[in-house]
């Protein structure tokens, strides 16, 4: 007795059709969510960010050095022209391109270590901060402040020293922490000026094979000590839109560029995985789309069968939205149940690969992205269903 109109309108509802739809959409949604979760896990930026399996891919490119041409100062240019940089930026696989700025002055570094004084000629470069894989504190420099210049060096250099130089020379091996505490002194000279500045190694990069200083320092130092115009960049760092993109590789080969810091193998595997994940997600999407059409057809059939009742109710003064509301509730409840079931499947499935992934050092990502994807798809489907119902009910008006 509670709702007579509802008793009228639920006539002809086919439980079979709704269950059929729910199952189909469940399969589609479960596939999509599981694939999204899997991709996210592999892409996880939790553990050290760029050490994840599918990381953002960066390539450092330079021109191939041929013969002694450059050395003799008469060969082709080893630096990149503005046009060449613009061309790389315009490539579809390049998300952004950063330039290495080299120091156009002389640098000597001296360090007192274990009672011995080491001194060496050095080079410095700077690149925009956003390309760093490490984010050291105090990565900034104010000229004239007297604070030490923060320096990031390649992890390879430390490895080279620890396991190459120090081991063979009986020098002590040092950890990253110890290196950070060693005071460095840099002698900057050029353009008839000379100055000592303090420096400190604040981080080690596995991406950048250079000795990097903040751009603010480089700008000041180049302005103060550089003789003549600044050289154009001879190395570029390119962030790829997609790890291991074959287009990028072909382009580099075609233009004779050399790629350093190349994670070719992991890049390829990552590329392959992302393609596979995309295919799986697409399959899930197709299943969900078909399910959506099943439900839409089923709704049309139901509303067609109940057309007289719907019409008569509206003749009595029921508004189309009052009539449609009952069908909205069915659709929304079904879709919500499907979403919950699919999320449960996704969470259960991800449990199964958590352990193996942890053994290769990948921390699982939060399931939030996958859940939000599911919510978005469910909302989209529900809105589509509601639009169809509303249209069909209004069509029964006269």
């Amino acid at each position, binding site marked *: *007795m509670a709702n*007579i109109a509802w008793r009228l309108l639920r*006539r002809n509802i086919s439980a079979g059709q709704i269950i059929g739809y729910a199952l189909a959409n469940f399969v589609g949604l479960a596939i999509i969510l599981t694939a999204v979760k899997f991709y996210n896990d592999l892409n996880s930026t939790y553990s050290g960010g760029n050490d994840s399996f599918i990381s953002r891919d960066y390539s450092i490119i330079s021109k191939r050095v041929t013969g002694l041409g450059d050395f003799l100062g008469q060969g082709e240019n080893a630096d990149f022209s503005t046009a060449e940089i613009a061309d790389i930026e315009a490539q579809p696989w390049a998300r952004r391109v950063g330039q290495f700025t080299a120091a156009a002055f002389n640098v000597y570094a001296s360090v007192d270590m274990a009672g011995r004084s080491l001194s060496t000629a050095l080079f410095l470069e700077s690149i925009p901060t956003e390309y760093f894989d490490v984010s050291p504190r105090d990565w900034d420099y104010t000229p004239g402040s007297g604070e030490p210049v923060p320096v990031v060096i390649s992890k390879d250099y430390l490895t080279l020293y620890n396991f190459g130089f120090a081991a063979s020379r009986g020098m002590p091996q040092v950890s990253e922490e110890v290196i950070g505490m060693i005071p460095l002194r840099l002698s900057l000279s050029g353009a008839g000026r000379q100055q000592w500045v303090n420096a400190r190694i604040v981080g080690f990069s596995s991406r950048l094979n250079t000795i990097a200083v903040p751009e603010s320092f480089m700008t000041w130092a180049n302005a103060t000590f550089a003789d003549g115009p600044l050289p154009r960049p001879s190395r570029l760092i390119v962030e790829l839109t997609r790890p291991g993109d074959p287009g990028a590789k072909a382009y580099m080969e075609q233009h004779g560029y050399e790629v350093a810091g190349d994670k070719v193998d992991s890049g390829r595997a990552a590329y392959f995985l992302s393609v596979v994940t995309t295919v799986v997600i697409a399959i899930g999407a197709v299943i969900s789309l078909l399910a959506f059409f099943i439900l839409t057809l089923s709704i049309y059939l139901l509303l067609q069968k109940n057309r007289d009742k719907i019409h008569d109710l509206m*003749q*009595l*003064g*029921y*508004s*189309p939205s009052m009539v449609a509301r009952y069908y909205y509730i069915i659709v929304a409840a079904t879709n919500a149940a499907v979403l919950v079931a699919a999320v449960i499947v996704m969470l259960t499935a991800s449990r199964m690969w958590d352990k193996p992934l942890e053994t290769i050092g990948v921390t699982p990502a939060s399931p939030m992205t996958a859940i939000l994807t599911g919510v978005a798809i469910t909302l989209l489907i529900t809105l589509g269903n509601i639009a169809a119902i509303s249209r069909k009910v209004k069509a029964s008006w*006269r």
Partner: protein
Amino acid sequence: MNRIDTITLDKALPRVFAGSEKEPPVRDSQVWLGHVEFDRPGRYLVEARSGAGKSSLCAFIYGSRNDYEGHILINGADISSFSIAQWTRLRCRSLAYLPQEMRLFPELTAMENILVKNRLTDFKTAAEITAMLDRLGIADKAGVEAGKLSVGQQQRVAIVRALCQPMDFLLIDEPVSHLDARNNSTVAALIDEETTRQRAAIIATSVGNNIDIKNFTVLHL
């Protein structure tokens, strides 16, 4: 919207009669192609032979059909411009309609058929509805599915249902076609009382079996 005071037909003609304006029944009609005003709280009886468009007239005014030429105005506003929301409001608050074919839901009981209308405005209490059924001699049928009632009983259920709302105009299409003289009088008295109380107008149609209400303005369709 305020109460409906006038319903005007201005050169209205069912589209099915287009082209036969010079022939009966259109030629002799006092309604089609004329200018007719129904005022509240008047009482109008539209008499016609079968096939002259009585049911069409009611359906046009109620907004359930729009296959006519000319204009129909409610309080001066052309009803062809009314939105679905406006019609819904009118059907809940201003226009009561008893279609000739009654349109009861056969799977619902007599009482449920009435309640499905009454719950829109909660206009009548359950006791009032039972009293009306009782007066029409079908209180014992309240729990019976409408599909199992005789046509005369269905007609009385449909009349009670039509009265379960606030109204300015009551459109009753052949309200007593299946009732005997005694039931005709009871129905007429009930309708008379309800419309008088609500100061509502009546537009009734008939092919000859006229509802037993006095002081009708008779129009020949």
